[in-house]
C-alpha cells in the first residue's frame, strides 16, 4: 500500500508539473497540450470505440504473433542445444537474425504479404522467435550436468528428461529470452503500424500516425500513454509473477 501511494504521488506530481508548464505558456498549446485535453481525447476515443478497437487489433496481432514465436522458438532452441550440427547451422542463423533490429523485417513483410494482417504477424513472429531460440539454447546448455545424471538414475529419459528436467532447469534463461522477445516484438509492431497503413485494421500505431497527420498533439500523447500503460501491464501482470516465482524457487535476486 505504501509503495502504491508513493507511486501514485510520483505520477500525480508529474501530471501537476505538466499542467504548470502548460499554464506557463512557454510553448505553443499545439505542441504541448494540457493533460486535461489529452484526457478529453482519451475519454472521447474510448466513448466512440476507436480506442478500444485499435487496442484490440494491436493486442491481437501482438499476442498471436508472440505465441507463434514461442511455439516455434522453444522446440527450435531445444533442438539446437541437443545437436551441435543444428547449433552450427540454425543456431548461427538465429543469432544473426536476432541481432537484426526486427523493424528491418517490415519492408520485406510488406512486399511478401502486402498491407495485411499477415505482414504484421510476420514482423511480430520475427521479433519474438530468434530471442526465444537463443535463450532456450543458452539455458539448456547451462543446465548443470548433475541434474541430468541424477534424473537418469531415477529412470528419467528421452521426452521425460527433456520436459521434466532440462526444460524447467533452463527456465530462468528461457523467461528472460521471452521477455526480450516480447520487447522486440512490441517495438517492431509499433514501428510497422506507424509507418504503414494496414488495410485490415487500424491499430494503436495508426492512431498515433493519424494524430501526427492531423496535428492533433493530444491524440499523439494520449496514444503514447496507452502504449506505455500496455507495456507496464504486460510486465506487471505477465512477466513479474513468473520472475518472482523463479526468484523464490531458485533463491536468486531480491524477493519483494
Amino acid at each position, binding site marked *: 500500500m505504501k509503495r502504491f501511494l508513493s507511486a501514485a504521488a510520483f505520477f500525480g506530481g508529474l501530471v501537476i508539473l505538466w499542467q504548470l508548464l502548460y499554464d506557463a505558456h512557454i510553448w505553443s498549446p499545439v505542441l504541448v497540450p494540457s493533460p486535461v485535453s489529452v484526457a478529453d481525447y482519451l475519454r472521447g476515443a474510448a466513448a466512440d470505440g476507436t480506442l478500444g478497437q485499435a487496442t484490440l487489433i494491436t493486442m491481437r496481432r501482438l499476442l498471436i504473433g508472440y505465441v507463434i514465436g514461442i511455439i516455434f522458438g522453444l522446440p527450435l532452441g531445444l533442438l539446437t542445444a541437443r545437436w551441435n550440427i543444428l547449433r552450427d547451422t540454425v543456431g548461427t542463423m538465429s543469432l544473426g537474425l536476432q541481432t537484426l533490429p526486427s523493424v528491418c523485417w517490415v519492408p520485406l513483410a510488406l512486399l511478401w504479404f502486402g498491407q495485411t494482417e499477415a505482414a504484421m504477424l510476420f514482423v511480430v513472429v520475427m521479433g519474438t522467435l530468434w530471442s526465444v531460440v537463443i535463450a532456450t539454447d543458452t539455458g539448456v546448455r547451462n543446465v548443470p550436468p*548433475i541434474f541430468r*545424471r*541424477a534424473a*537418469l*538414475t*531415477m529412470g528419467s529419459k528421452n521426452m521425460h528428461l527433456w520436459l521434466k528436467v532440462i526444460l*524447467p532447469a533452463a527456465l530462468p534463461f528461457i523467461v528472460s529470452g521471452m521477455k526480450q522477445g516480447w520487447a522486440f516484438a512490441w517495438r517492431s509492431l509499433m514501428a510497422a503500424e506507424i509507418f504503414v497503413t494496414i488495410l485490415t485494421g487500424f491499430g494503436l500505431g495508426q492512431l498515433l500516425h493519424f494524430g501526427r497527420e492531423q496535428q492533433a498533439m493530444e491524440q499523439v500523447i494520449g496514444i503514447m500513454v496507452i502504449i506505455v500503460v500496455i507495456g507496464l501491464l504486460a510486465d506487471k501482470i505477465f512477466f513479474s509473477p513468473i520472475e518472482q516465482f523463479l526468484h523464490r*524457487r531458485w*533463491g536468486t535476486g531480491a524477493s519483494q
Partner: protein
Amino acid sequence: MYITHVIPWHSRATSSAKEELEVITPSKLAIESVSKSFKTATGTVQALDRVSLKVSEGEFVCLVGASGCGKSTLLNIIAGLEKPDSGLVMANGKPVTSPGRERLVMFQEAALFPWLDVLGNVLFGLRLKPGLRDKDRLDVAKYYLELVGLTRFEHSNIHELSGGMKQRVALARALAPNPRVLLMDEPFAALDALTREQLYGDIQRIWKARNKTIVFVTHNVREAACLGDRVLLFSPHPGRIQEEFTIELPRPRDINSVDLAGYASRIMRSLKGFTKAEGEVAE
C-alpha cells in the same frame, strides 16, 4: 540412542502404499574385470584396471582411496552412467547397460531440483515408477521425509535448506523408489562434522531397516570404518583394489569409538604405504 525400528506406518496409508513400503528387494552386484581409461590433455589415464568385486545382498561396502584413484568412476559404471572399456557389471544376475532406478545414486552435491519443492523432489523418482497410484506415491514420499526427519519442510524451497538438510532430502529421494542398491559418492564430504555424525547414524539405521545393498565411496578412512561391513582400498594409476578389510564391530557404530580408531589407523597405514610407493616410482 540408536533406533532400529522403522517409523510406524500410519493407519491412513492405503494398502498398496503399505505393500510398496514392505517390499524389500535386496540385490547382489558382481563387477568382473572392469577397465576404463580417460584421454586427457597430458595423455591417457588408466582410471580402472581389471577391477573385480562382489557385493552380496544387504552388504555395506566402502571404497576408499586418494582422489583420482578411480573409485568414483567405478561407482558411475555400476550406476550405468558410464560404460566400461572392457569387463562387465552384473546387478542381480543381469548385465548393467544403462542407469536404472534399481541402482540409485547419491552424489556429493545434493543435486536437488530447484524448480521443485522438497516434496516434489522426493516424488520425482516415484512418479517414474509404474504401478502406483498418486495417493500411494504421496504416502511413500511422506514416509521417507519422516524417516529423514524433514516432514516439517516438505513445502520448503531447496535454497532454504542447510547443506545437511539437502543431503537428507537427497537421501529420501534416492530411497523413495525403493532401489535394490544405493550408490553413494562421497555424499557427506561437504558437510560439517556434527551433521555428518548424525547422518552416519541415519544411514546405518535406514540401511538396516530397509535392508539395502550399499556401495559407498569416500576418501575418509574413519567414515569407511564406521559404515562398512567391508572396506576396499583403492590404489591410483592404474586404479586397482589393493587391499580389503573386514570390519567386525557391532552396530550401531560410533565414529569416535576406540575400536573403530584402531581399524581406521590400520587402513590409513596401508593407504599411506602405497601412496608412498607411488611417489617413489614417480621419482
